[in-house]
């Protein structure tokens, strides 16, 4: 056991921190300090500009090979980068559904031609990818997908509807599952397709999330023709009718290591500690005496998440695959995120009603136990696959 960072990792961290600090400041200044939510039309453009800045300096996808725009950082270096990114208040990544959800599948299942085309354009933000999993009648029950892909000469005809497509209104491409065998049931007969959104017959309608951001979209497919050569290397990822297996690999990444780095929650916990200190300094009488205990508890929970991640990365580096315990991890960070923000709102008291970073963050956090597989589904998975309890 060694819980210190190597000199190499520290150097990487310092380089990242220096670059981030300077460039985050410059980005904010370019926009007169008025940074909108990345999930609105105007804000998305602001954030895309920031991500381009990251890409140009090689910080967009640090763990990727250099050929695709990364710097081949180790998992430890990636963790250190994320810690600095969040500590310095870096904004949420608007390209994350591509780089954290699709990319792992492209690395695992893509042909070299697909990798060479998709990955660099994704890292640079030239192509923005949204996910097309859910449908109006296929949410938690993903296997009941009905969107169809009909094989014809030279391509596919797409029909149906996807929904809850995060940032779909601002994206250029969609990845998702389509039923390619009309006779098939449940998780059989699905194909994982890569779909440019500018095809004839595709309509994208953005709609508002609970916090007002137009973070969701519905995507309608009305006999849209998807040519086989719409993308170099083809539009099928991982083989026809193999969609379920490819998608499951992706959803596992979604819950796992890459989407929710502990750096984000540790930074929030540190800000919560700072908020407590401020409120206490401002008016000790006004601070509920139970809140100090709650702040300490929240800080510990964030720290425990960091420690658990260090264990997981150690195992990953040793070549052991992440198991079903990623379900527990998803429950932990999503409930922690709400708890962190609720504690902050309770510290703010009546002011909590006014919009601000904590209020906005709280509204966003409420989605955590729902998306990426509801926490109820995760608890089922953990019980069955971690503990080995019998299925129904």
């Amino acid at each position, binding site marked *: 056991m060694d819980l210190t960072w190597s000199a190499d990792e520290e150097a990487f961290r310092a380089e990242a921190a220096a670059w981030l600090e300077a460039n985050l400041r410059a980005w904010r200044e370019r926009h007169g300090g008025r940074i*909108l*939510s990345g*999930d*609105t*039309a*105007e*804000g998305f453009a602001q954030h895309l500009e920031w991500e381009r800045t990251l890409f140009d300096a090689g910080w967009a996808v640090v763990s990727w090979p250099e050929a695709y725009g990364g710097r081949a950082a180790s998992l430890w270096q990636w963790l250190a980068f994320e810690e600095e990114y969040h500590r310095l208040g870096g904004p949420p990544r608007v390209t994350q559904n591509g780089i954290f959800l699709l990319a792992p599948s492209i690395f695992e299942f893509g042909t070299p031609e697909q990798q060479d085309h998709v990955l660099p354009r994704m890292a640079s933000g030239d192509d923005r990818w949204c996910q097309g999993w*859910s449908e109006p*009648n296929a*949410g*938690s*029950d993903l296997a*009941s997908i009905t969107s169809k892909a009909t094989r014809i000469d030279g391509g596919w005809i797409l029909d149906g509807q996807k*929904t*809850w497509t995060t940032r779909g209104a601002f994206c250029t491409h969609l990845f998702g599952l389509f039923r390619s065998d009309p006779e098939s049931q449940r998780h059989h007969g699905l194909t994982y397709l890569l779909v440019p959104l500018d095809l004839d017959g595709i309509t994208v309608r953005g*709609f*508002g*999330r*609970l*916090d*007002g*951001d*137009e973070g*969701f979209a519905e995507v309608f497919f009305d006999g849209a023709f998807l040519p086989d050569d719409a993308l170099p290397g083809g539009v099928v990822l991982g083989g026809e009718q193999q969609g379920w297996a490819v998608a499951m690999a992706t959803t596992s990444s979604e819950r796992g290591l890459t989407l929710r780095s502990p750096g984000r929650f540790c930074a929030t916990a540190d800000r919560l500690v700072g908020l407590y200190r401020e409120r206490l300094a401002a008016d000790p009488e006004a601070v*509920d005496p*139970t809140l100090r205990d709650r702040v300490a508890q929240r800080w510990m929970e964030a720290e425990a998440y960091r420690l658990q991640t260090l264990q997981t990365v150690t195992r990953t580096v040793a070549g052991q695959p992440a198991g079903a315990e990623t379900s527990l991890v998803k429950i932990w960070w999503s409930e922690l995120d709400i708890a962190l923000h609720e504690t902050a*709102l*309770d510290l703010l*008291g*009546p*002011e*909590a*009603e*006014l*919009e601000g970073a904590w*209020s*906005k963050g709280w*509204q966003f956090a*409420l*989605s955590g*136990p*729902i*998306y990426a597989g*509801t*926490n*109820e589904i995760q*608890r089922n998975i953990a019980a069955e696959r971690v503990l080995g309890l019998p299925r129904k």
Partner: protein
Amino acid sequence: MHFAFDDDQLAFRDAVRDLLAKECPPEVVRAAWPEGPDEHGARKGDGARADPPRIERVWVALAEMGVLGMAVPQAHGGLGLTEVDWVLLAEETGFAALPHPFVETVCVAGPLLAAAGDPDGLVPGIVAGTATVGVVPLDDLVAWGDRVDRVVLLDQRTSGRHWQARRVEGGLTRGPKPGTPRRIEAALDGARAPLVLQQWKEVGRCGTPDDAALAFDRGALGTAAQLVGLGRRMLDLTVGYVSERRQFGVPVGSQQAVKHHLADAALQLTFAAPAVYRAAWSLATGAPEAARDASMAKAMASDAARLVGRKALQCHGAIGYTVEYDLHLYLKRAEALARAWGSAGWHRNRVATALGI
């Protein structure tokens, strides 16, 4: 000993419920939200895109039914109802998420100003629905800042432990000059349109410290009742949704996890509601524990409504997390009201003090 409402009280409740179902459906609540993007670029309300006159129509309809003067003595043109008579009406305004200063103007300011001899001559307007008075309890936020004409401050700040109700001039505009535009803050619940109290001048007290204390407890009670109503609304909405929505070939609501979430929600409401009704009785009868009971009501209703909101959202899944679906209107109102008029922790502190600890 008889812990139930009488037929008149229930009939009035039903009449208000019917009126609000007709005049205050979700699209009216939505219309009260500001239009256009907020400072994050987010759009939440329909504002002028909806039908703003309908917002005013609800208030007028309530005035016509006598509801706006419910707590004002008959001598001042009101119905002179007690807290026991009106607590269910407040609950219904919560159920409907009525986008008006009902608690402030109707439950608190009306009877308080009347008790003080109506120094500013506002009471007839309150009863008629033509005057609205904001009340600022404990802090600096004026809820319904786009709707109120005057403000009464209710606190213990400059007077030791005694409550005081201060009539003020100004406070609603941005600058010292009358007519300067109000600055409504972006807020969790856009319909509440809070503004931060600006420059104001005290023009006089409003009643005795006891009147002020009673006014505060009425505000806490009215808000607690609204929270119970909001909790019921969210639970109803969710029960309806999960009974219809199917996943894995069965209704979502047949899953044990969903059942237990909603049983927990029902549990909290089932035990918060009697605390609210008892507080109404304690205030109506001037019981010595009235302040403690009002605090218990507010603490339990705040926690219950927040829990119901969380369970409701979780059981809905993604649909509940959209602006287009109605749940968020109630969930955000509940979250705001849970901290308005004293948070659960603030009121538990008062209960603890009353228990001698």
